């Protein structure tokens, strides 16, 4: 009954399907490593989706569209940074509000763009490489963003592990009081991390509206931002595990589509809820029986920092 599913196509498709959540997750990972919990990923993604879509349609250039998407996400995240870092608002409430605001605003901005086709983003021309059986399909048939997203994961990993900037970022997330005592600008570092997270979420959103779907529909992200948040925990705040997590979730999403196409006699609803169910399961398994420390969570995650002490 699974005979109609082609593994090469499935793997190739899951890599594409995982790009938006991977981009959003790697951004959020950096934000959380700096000690900030931004629950507005969904809102920043959808703002990236509409801003990217509008820019691409108006300019006719997909590249400009992606830049616009990243900018849209970053601008919305700036609002979050203003609320939580400058005005010391609660991070959870601000993040949730950001999501709701982003969903509403994107819907408003997108009113004139329903049903329009965006300019197409092509695949990277690998020439004969793409004709290698199996590997050609899996590795060399994608658009640039599939490769870019993996490169970003590698860059974030190297940044956190090997550079002084990465060390300072981790230090701020680990103990903002100690970082402040040593003279690091906690709020400024967190602001930069939040902006990066917003830009990455926006890029992920733009990928949805410009490549994955590709058109504008209300609520296009459909919970991808929440999955990205879950992946960060699943990855225990480590970049390469985030890639693994994104591919896993992308794979499940893709598999349930393929299973539906293969007419497996299970109600469609069960299949569509399976990625979310598995997310919950994985989170429960990850958190059971072990302390926060073994999960590697930044010790100051979600806590605001008041400098005047």
């Amino acid at each position, binding site marked *: 009954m699974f005979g109609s599913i082609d593994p090469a196509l499935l793997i190739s498709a899951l890599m594409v399907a995982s790009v938006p959540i991977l981009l959003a997750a790697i951004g959020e990972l950096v934000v959380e490593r700096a000690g900030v919990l931004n629950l507005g990923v969904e809102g920043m993604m959808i703002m990236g989706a509409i801003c990217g879509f509008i820019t691409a349609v108006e300019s006719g250039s997909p590249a400009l569209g992606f830049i616009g998407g990243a900018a849209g996400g970053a601008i919305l995240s700036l609002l979050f940074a203003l609320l939580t870092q400058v005005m010391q608002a609660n991070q959870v409430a601000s993040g949730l509000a950001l999501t709701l605001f982003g969903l509403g605003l994107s819907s408003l901005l997108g009113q004139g763009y329903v049903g329009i086709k965006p300019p197409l983003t092509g695949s990277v021309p690998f020439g004969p490489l793409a004709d290698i059986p199996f590997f050609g399909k899996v590795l060399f048939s994608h658009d640039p963003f599939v490769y870019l997203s993996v490169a970003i994961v590698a860059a974030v990993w190297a940044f956190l592990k090997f550079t*002084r900037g990465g060390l300072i970022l981790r230090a701020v997330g*680990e*103990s903002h009081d100690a970082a*402040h005592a*040593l*003279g690091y600008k906690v709020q400024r570092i967190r602001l930069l991390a939040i902006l990066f997270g917003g830009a990455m979420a926006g890029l992920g959103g733009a990928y949805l509206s410009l490549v994955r779907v590709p058109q504008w529909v209300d609520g296009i992200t459909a919970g991808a931002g929440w999955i990205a948040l879950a992946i960060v925990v699943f990855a225990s705040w480590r970049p390469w595990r985030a890639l693994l997590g994104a591919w896993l979730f992308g794979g499940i999403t893709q598999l349930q589509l393929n299973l539906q196409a293969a007419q497996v006699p299970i109600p469609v609803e069960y299949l569509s809820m399976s990625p979310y169910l598995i997310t919950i399961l994985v989170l429960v398994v990850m958190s059971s029986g072990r302390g926060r*420390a073994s999960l590697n969570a930044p*010790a100051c995650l979600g806590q605001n920092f008041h400098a005047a002490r």
Partner: protein
Amino acid sequence: MNANAGAELLRIDGVTKAYPGVIANSDVSFSIREGEVHALLGENGAGKSTLVKMIYGLIKPDSGHMVWRGEAYAPAKPSMARTAGVAMVFQHFSLFEALDVAENVALGMENPPPMRELAARIRAVSEEYGLPLDPGRMVGDLSAGERQRVEIIRCLLQSPKLLIMDEPTSVLTPQEVEILFETLRKLKAEGTSILYISHKLEEIRSLCDEATILRRGKVVATCTPREKTARELAEMMVGATLTPPERRAGEKGEVALGVSDLSLASPIPFGTSLKGISFAVSKGEVLGIAGVAGNGQDELLLALSGEITTEPDRIRIHSHPVGDLGPVERRKAGLVAAPEERLGHAAAPNMSLTENALLSGAVRKGLTRNGFIDWAGTESFARAIIEGFDVRTPGTHVAARALSGGNLQKFVIGRELMQDPEVIVINQPTWGVDAAAAASIRQAILDRAAAGAAVVVISQDLDELLEIADTFAALNEGRMTRPRPVEGLSIEEIGLMMGGAHGMEVAHHGA
């Protein structure tokens, strides 16, 4: 004045710093010469920490100025202070538990070398100064003494001219203090000046050349500590004569609290598991449990208060097994507990004093009836605590977080002691409390014991334990020594009970 002292290194001239409602420093002036160990002496809240934070560039003075080697000195941020040659070892360690030693050191340096080279330099400096340390270890796994070594080495790697140490010995065993002093004397001999903040008078008398004494933000005296007695120094610091708590030799009754072979995994990240703890406390007895922070004190309090439960027979109150009962049932059985952390653990920060009185007093004072709160009764209970323990507050409606540390401590201790308890467990009863308030808290504990309560006091302040305890035990890496009578214990024996110098006996050999 030392005849052989060097030129003036740093002069503080009329520095003032005010926060809303409180003047932390008022017209403070003193100077430090090269190669001098200068003590900054004062009670909690006297303004010592504010002053050194200004020297380190963390905060800016409102007025006044500083002179560093003859030039105006006004560091806008810590990196400027570090560049000038100021290094600081913090009271509450400025360390990152989830990072390793080398990363922690790198964060405190201006231009750290590559990690591998840094690790080699850490090894070299730690050997030179007798402070063994493995650069690859996670700081969260280190003991308090080892963590302090991380801070000191971080400072030494920058070859400072002035080393500021903020209460460095409060977390060390007596043996570790000796080793630290060896290191400091070595630094002094090399010409480094040290600004040493403490309220431990004997230490200052043995180590420091000069002392500046602060009281409520003002310099009240300068002196040469060797020429004064500890008592004279204490009275300059407090500004009043001190009366030590009065001890009544009470009769010891039957065992009220028994703990047998208690082992427990720690629920706290980087915490210490308890391993086979056994002791018994009789009515009228005060058991003092010493130990360097992080050796299982918090876990022991959680286990005794009922916040972590265990097998029934492990903990007995009046020979009834209570190990599997939660805090409320244990309160019913007669046990009250006061944890170390005032805000957030002992008291709910945003709730009023009345509400906080209810939270722990409801069971034993009968402040609820059929699920409804007896507000009038609660209010009078809160007022009784405030009067009985001299808590300075505008009223019972004030939020717990609005009280100063010492006043809140008096409130949370008073709240427990006024519930006619039969067993009392307190962790750090006088942490961050000024000397007069500390004396009254200790007196209240002794009065309760004289009235027949069995008392367990966990504290890092050895002097406090020796003052109030009948029997003495120490926690070290989750294990507890057998309790011994306080009388006849020497400070060396106590140090060894606390774990000695944590594998550092070889340090400074021949030094």
